[in-house]
């Protein structure tokens, strides 16, 4: 017992250091001759909400299953909370909601949480205190005494989320946490994610609902064919390759060519106002373009950035690879 306590404090040291909460290096999984995950390398810092995206069959769930000890990596290294995969002290501080959530249907919600609390090594007093809290968190207090077999899909997903949080984890893996939830349920999960972020919990979120990931995540990685195809802060990804519409006064030809050095001009429509459609590499490039136009005394009537969504980024990253593969 005393050893466990000292090991737990080791993890606390890891958190205070600059080591990431999740660190994957060259993680690879091959099923017979099928490469499911290929050289997956990424890191997630403590306290981040990290979106893990990719098309069907990209290797997302296999990656998470490797980290959860359900599937063994063929090669590569991974550390969670600064410890090797499978380390029991680290596992005590990790929560996991599986994608295909199926639980022991003959247990009541409360018994199910009690079982998982026991598996985490929580004593009776801790379980008695924590179970009502997580039941309330997922709005299942009124159904705690009912068997899970009688729950709807959405309720089963919520009790699954409760078991992932029963141990007050420092790192949570949520694999499609809202797949069975209605819009209200999804909003509740977003609120839970915000609360976890506020508590400094690291969240690794795999979801097909990109709008949700966009709202909840600090950083994302888009993987395709088992590799990281793009990664970065959500804000940076959305700002990258910006489409902008400039509504201007008369624009001399030489100034247009100057402008084209700062942004990629796609279309110019002459009229009462000159409308320039362009792509910019960043928000800074747009600012530089506006600055140029102002200095040259070209009236700027409007600069309208086209709001990109994470879905646009996702399609831009994944579609070319898909096209090439055809």
């Amino acid at each position, binding site marked *: 017992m005393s050893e466990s306590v000292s090991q737990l404090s080791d993890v606390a040291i890891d958190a205070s250091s600059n080591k990431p909460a999740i660190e994957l290096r060259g993680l690879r999984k091959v099923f017979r001759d099928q490469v499911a995950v290929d050289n997956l390398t990424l890191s997630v810092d403590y306290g981040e909400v990290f979106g893990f995206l990719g098309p069907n069959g990209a290797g997302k769930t296999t990656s998470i299953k490797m980290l959860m000890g359900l599937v063994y990596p063929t090669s590569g290294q991974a550390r969670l909370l600064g410890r090797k995969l499978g380390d029991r002290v680290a596992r005590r501080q*990790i929560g996991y909601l*599986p994608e295909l959530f199926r639980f022991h249907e003959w247990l009541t919600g409360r018994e199910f949480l009690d*079982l*998982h609390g026991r598996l985490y090594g929580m004593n009776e007093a801790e379980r008695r205190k924590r179970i009502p809290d997580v039941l309330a968190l997922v709005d299942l207090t009124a159904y705690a005494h009912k068997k899970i077999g009688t729950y709807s899909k959405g309720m089963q997903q919520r009790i699954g989320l409760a078991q992932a949080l029963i141990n007050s984890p420092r790192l949570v893996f949520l694999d499609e946490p809202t797949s069975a939830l209605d819009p209200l349920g999804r909003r509740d999960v977003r609120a839970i994610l915000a609360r976890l972020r506020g508590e400094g919990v690291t969240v690794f979120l795999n979801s097909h609902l990109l709008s949700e990931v966009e709202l909840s995540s600090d950083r994302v990685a888009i993987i395709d064919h088992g590799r990281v195809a793009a990664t970065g802060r959500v804000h940076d990804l959305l700002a990258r390759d910006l489409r902008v519409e400039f509504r201007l006064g008369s624009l001399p030809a030489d100034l247009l060519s100057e402008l084209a050095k700062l942004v990629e001009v796609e279309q110019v429509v002459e009229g009462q106002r000159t409308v320039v459609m362009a792509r910019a590499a960043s928000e800074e490039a747009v600012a530089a373009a506006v600055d140029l136009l102002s200095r040259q005394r070209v009236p700027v009537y409007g600069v309208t950035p086209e709001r990109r969504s994470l879905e646009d980024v996702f399609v831009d990253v994944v579609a070319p690879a898909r096209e090439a593969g055809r």
Partner: protein
Amino acid sequence: MNVAIIARLTVREAFRRKVILGVVLLSLAFIALYALGFHLFRDNYLSLEARRAARTGAGPAPSYAVSASAMVLLGLYTVNFLTGIMTIFAAVGTVAGEIEAGTLDAIVPKPISRWQIITGKYLGFALMLSAYIVLMVCGVALTAHLVGHYGPPHLVHGTLLVILVSMILLSLTMLGSTLFSTMTNGIIVFMLYGVAVTGGLVEQLGTALNSDTMVRIGVGSSILLPSDSMWRLASYVVQPSLAISFIGPNPLGTTVPPSDRAVHYSIVYCVMLVIGSVLVFQRRDL
């Protein structure tokens, strides 16, 4: 601690799924039927004896113990057979079924070793099956005592051997459940169980017909799955020697008991199969 949690979960599942309730009700029905059968047997036997004594003027024949022993053997055989079937049905999907359903996905990532999951499940089943066997043997023995006024010898030894039969089948079924799907495992284990029973019968016939080849076939099947040989040893120890020599080689028992070495082999067989289950499950992707 984790082993105890999984063992408790296994027992709880059996209760919640009403497996225990169904088994208890059917077992009570069996004991009632058995008691009625024993009562009718004793009545008929005594009236036959009385008629024979009246006809010949001789005293009571010493063969009642032989016949009563056969009735006890029949009862214990039924207990052994039912437990064998129950063992296979209970454990056939214990790992494979959970992998197929996905329920292990939330358990395995917890701070628990995979060997603890296997050992916990084994322990849970072993406790339930052992308790069931003890209760059923007590039911048969009490019936024999109260209705038949007969007490079989070496009942504790016999009970332990019937428990060993169940543990052999449990070990095999657990190993199969880590290797195969539920359906494939069920088919394989039942076929092996059938081979063991048939091998035992062939061995008894071989003994009666003095055929070494047939006896060797029986021994071979006992090596493959020693459940039937352990049952035959159990049947041997719970019968008085008079009954064994009077009845001779028969489908339910034996006149040539398996040796101590066979018992040791069976225990090692169980241990090796459980270790095999752990090793397979330890390496398996879920």
